[in-house]
């Protein structure tokens, strides 16, 4: 299919269309918009991890001067627990209970009520005046406690194997017969691992501004990973029809999956409707950390068996992923992705969704896959050691290739996993010498990638330039890539192409920005729209020249007569044809709306070097190389950027980031000082190698690139630490106290203290 071949703009590091606004402070993010008459909303949140809400008295709050509206669960549309209503991967039964506690408060930070007042200070004061009578219930935070036989049960209606349980579901991926497979194995390694919940860590807190007219016509400005998701969820939760809601996507200050659901928008809409005033709501960082979704903490056991020559014959994984207080952990990524880089005849992967009194998890970059890959890729490192094989050779020997049937279903087409292994093996990094207390580790990773619904409208302006509108919030430079593609197809300077993100009233339905789908899907609809425009332009030139449209070719931004008329007429440029548009059939533009297909999975292989400070227990990553099959790098700068950003998040997950809970079941580190994300001085340069094996099912060969780079990182770091110290770690994060304890042994530590 790959139609574009001349490569004037594809692969170029062009200036992004939204760039100038973002370096000058002009770009409008969610909290940057105000309206005349605007008031402020605040949320009253549960102080308890688990409590029945016996009564809520808002009368004193409502009587406070300046308070314009108060809402609680009775204002939010209820979705009874016995009937599932799905919106994408989210179940509205759980969404309605997450945006506002209904029967029970399920975690500290769970919204109980919301207030709108003329100032933020009055709204905060009013929250304090709301009287809530709680019946405090026993609570549970950790996985082992939540699945213990006598665990406090979060939801009476939830049953597992016939009994009330905190296990919200079981997911299985199976291929062959693992018992038969392990019987053939000559070497088996089986290990158990734990990981802690980590937050996406976007720097922009959730925020929105909502205005509701007397006729219910509603306008929402907010930053999210999908304005259509905002519209649909707000409609469901407020009862306002989708056609009355216009959701306008602000610039989004990072999402990484965490902005694929709503928190504030339905509450602000209800407050705006009740008060008749536009309502603005902005979360504090503490609210973000307490009440929005991190990804799951987990425990897992992985067993892999191989022949002495390194042929893997069987693999089994059991993964327990935390869902938070409502069902929905990313088990699919853990069970579906972890073994997918390998051609293994017998596979069994089982995932359990475990509920506890934590905030509901949200998607985070390749949801579930990094958790699974961490366990699998660490076990592979031990297996390579047991087999006395180079860890990359072990992976090469068992690598999935074209024709390999993945355990989760599909047969892989042409994929680039082997190429990433070969590129890693031949990279100078892999053979560079290491110093004392330094070590090197490798790991690989896979993510499904995704297609799905996208819409585009491409219009030619009267002066012969181009405006492209798509429906996906741009989190990492997708507008820049779309400009490259459209300019390439039309044969014009990329600066003549403006790329905008439409709101729900101005562009057709487009699914979430997520799953590494945006450029894959929007490139298809933009290409098809542009192709339609080129057909129109050729028809019009043919009419002017009075020749057959088939005898016109489009090249370098102009219509040219092709054989047999080649050279007979002067080319007609885009600008000339645009100027003639009124007399030639009218405006030139085309739109396409499609459920895109053909997204192919992505693979990466990473090499990590660390140095361990044995006095302080600090692990520093001193060199990092990430190799990835990116399909086709439409804008290499932002492809590299995706890879580097994913790696940095993985290093944080591996070495420092974790939710720490205190004895009363509350998050003890709800800020950037104590929730330790990598800062600039923590990291080295992050080298990338882009392997380009074009996706045969995409016009430009695009594969998703955003999620894969997080998947291998934690195992690569863990394997490097083992290589440096000769000791293995089976839990994340490998933070200084943990590392010290392993180096010195628990007795030494106690004596020293």
């Amino acid at each position: 299919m790959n139609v574009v071949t001349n490569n004037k703009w594809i692969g170029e590091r062009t200036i992004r269309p939204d760039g100038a606004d973002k370096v000058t402070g002009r770009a409008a993010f969610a909290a940057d918009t105000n309206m005349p008459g605007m008031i402020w909303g605040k949320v009253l949140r549960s102080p308890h991890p688990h409590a029945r809400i016996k009564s809520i008295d808002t009368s004193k709050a409502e009587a406070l001067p300046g308070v314009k509206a108060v809402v609680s669960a009775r204002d939010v549309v209820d979705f009874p627990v016995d009937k599932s209503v799905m919106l994408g991967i989210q179940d509205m039964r759980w969404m309605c209970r997450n945006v506002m506690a209904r029967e029970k408060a399920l975690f500290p930070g769970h919204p109980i009520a919301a207030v709108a007042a003329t100032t933020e200070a009055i709204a905060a004061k009013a929250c304090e005046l709301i009287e809530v009578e709680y019946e405090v219930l026993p609570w549970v935070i950790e996985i082992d406690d939540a699945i213990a036989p006598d665990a406090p049960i979060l939801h009476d209606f939830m049953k597992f194997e016939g009994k009330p349980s905190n296990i919200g579901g079981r997911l299985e991926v199976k291929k062959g017969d693992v018992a038969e497979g392990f019987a053939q194995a000559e070497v088996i390694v089986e290990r158990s691992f734990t990981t802690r919940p980590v937050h996406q860590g976007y720097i922009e807190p959730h925020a929105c501004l909502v205005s509701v007219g007397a006729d219910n016509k509603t306008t929402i400005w907010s930053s999210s990973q999908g304005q259509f998701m905002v519209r649909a969820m707000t409609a469901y939760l407020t009862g306002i029809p989708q056609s009355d809601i216009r959701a306008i996507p602000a610039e989004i200050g990072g999402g990484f999956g965490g902005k694929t659901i709503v928190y504030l928008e339905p509450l602000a809409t209800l407050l705006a409707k009740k008060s008749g005033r536009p309502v603005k709501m902005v979360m504090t960082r503490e609210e973000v950390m307490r009440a929005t979704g991190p990804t799951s903490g987990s425990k897992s056991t992985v067993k892999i068996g191989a022949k002495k020559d390194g042929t893997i014959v069987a693999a089994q994984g059991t993964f327990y992923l935390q869902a938070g207080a409502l069902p929905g952990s990313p088990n699919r990524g853990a069970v579906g992705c972890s073994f997918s880089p390998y051609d293994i005849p017998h596979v069994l992967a089982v995932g359990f969704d475990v509920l506890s009194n934590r905030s509901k998890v949200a998607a985070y970059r390749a949801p579930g896959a990094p958790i699974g890959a961490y366990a699998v890729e660490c076990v592979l490192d031990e297996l390579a050691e047991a087999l006395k094989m180079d860890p990359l050779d072990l992976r090469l020997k068992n690598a999935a290739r074209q024709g390999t049937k993945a355990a989760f279903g599909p047969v892989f087409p042409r994929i680039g996993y082997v190429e990433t292994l070969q590129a890693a093996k031949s990279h100078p990094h892999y053979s560079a010498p290491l110093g004392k207390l330094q070590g090197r580790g490798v790991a690989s990773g896979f993510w499904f990638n995704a297609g799905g619904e996208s819409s585009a409208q491409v219009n030619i302006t009267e002066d012969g330039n181009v405006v492209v509108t798509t429906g996906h919030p741009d989190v990492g430079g997708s507008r820049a890539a779309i400009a490259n593609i459209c300019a390439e197809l039309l044969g014009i300077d990329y600066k003549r192409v403006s790329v905008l993100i439409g709101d729900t009233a101005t562009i057709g339905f487009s699914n979430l920005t997520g799953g590494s789908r945006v450029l894959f899907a929007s490139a298809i609809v933009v290409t098809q729209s542009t192709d339609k425009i080129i057909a129109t332009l050729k028809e019009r030139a043919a009419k002017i020249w009075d020749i057959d449209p088939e005898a016109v070719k489009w090249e370098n931004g102009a219509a040219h007569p092709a054989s047999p008329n080649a050279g007979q007429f002067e080319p007609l440029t885009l600008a000339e044809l645009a100027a003639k548009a009124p007399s030639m059939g009218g405006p030139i533009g085309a739109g396409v709306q499609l459920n895109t297909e053909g997204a192919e999975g992505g693979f990466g292989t990473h090499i990590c070097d660390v140095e361990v400070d044995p006095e302080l227990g600090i692990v520093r990553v001193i060199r990092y190389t990430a190799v990835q099959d990116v399909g086709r790098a439409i804008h290499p700068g932002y492809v590299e950027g995706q890879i580097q950003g994913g790696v940095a998040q993985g290093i944080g997950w591996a070495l420092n980031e974790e939710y720490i809970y205190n004895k009363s079941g509350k998050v003890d580190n709800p800020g950037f000082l104590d929730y330790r994300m990598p800062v600039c001085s923590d990291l080295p340069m992050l080298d990338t190698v882009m392997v380009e094996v074009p996706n045969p099912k995409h016009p430009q060969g695009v594969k998703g690139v955003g999620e894969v780079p997080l998947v291998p990182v934690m195992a690569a770091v863990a394997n490097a630490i083992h290589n440096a110290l000769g000791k293995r770690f089976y839990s994340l994060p490998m933070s200084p106290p943990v590392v010290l304890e392993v180096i010195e042994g628990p007795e030494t530590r106690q004596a020293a203290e």
Partner: protein
Amino acid sequence: MAKLHVSTTINGEPVEFLCEPSDTMLDALRGPLGLTGSKEGCASGDCGACSITLDDRLVCSCLMLAVEAEGHALQTIEGMAHGDKLHPLQQKFLEMAALQCGICTSGMLVASDALLRKNSKPSEEEVRFWLAGNLCRCTGYDKIVRAVMETADEMREAAQ
């Protein structure tokens, strides 16, 4: 309590505004002054998205009271470009893809500019430690550090 009156200079222009005694400089910038280029990521001085300079000293505007601006000179991201002429750092960030979502970019640029004013030839380590108070979750910092060092090289060459 009545609001307080503050006279100050922002981006070279004399400015007056009213604020509550408890308002931070970031509140004043984003509120009455309408300068929303400075962002609030944490309100605790940990993320640097609100970075400005106060008499050439780099500060988190979320940690400064608005009344403290009285009689001083402030510089925000809005004052970095001259009309449509971008500062070399801004231009380099665009050319080198040193931003993704852009929420940290204002603070990164203000902080980087403050560094280059003090140190025209920073080492990679100096850049990394200077920017350690500016969180970026998208880029892994690689392209930001390179952009700052490359801008420093070009500005030194241009000055010669």
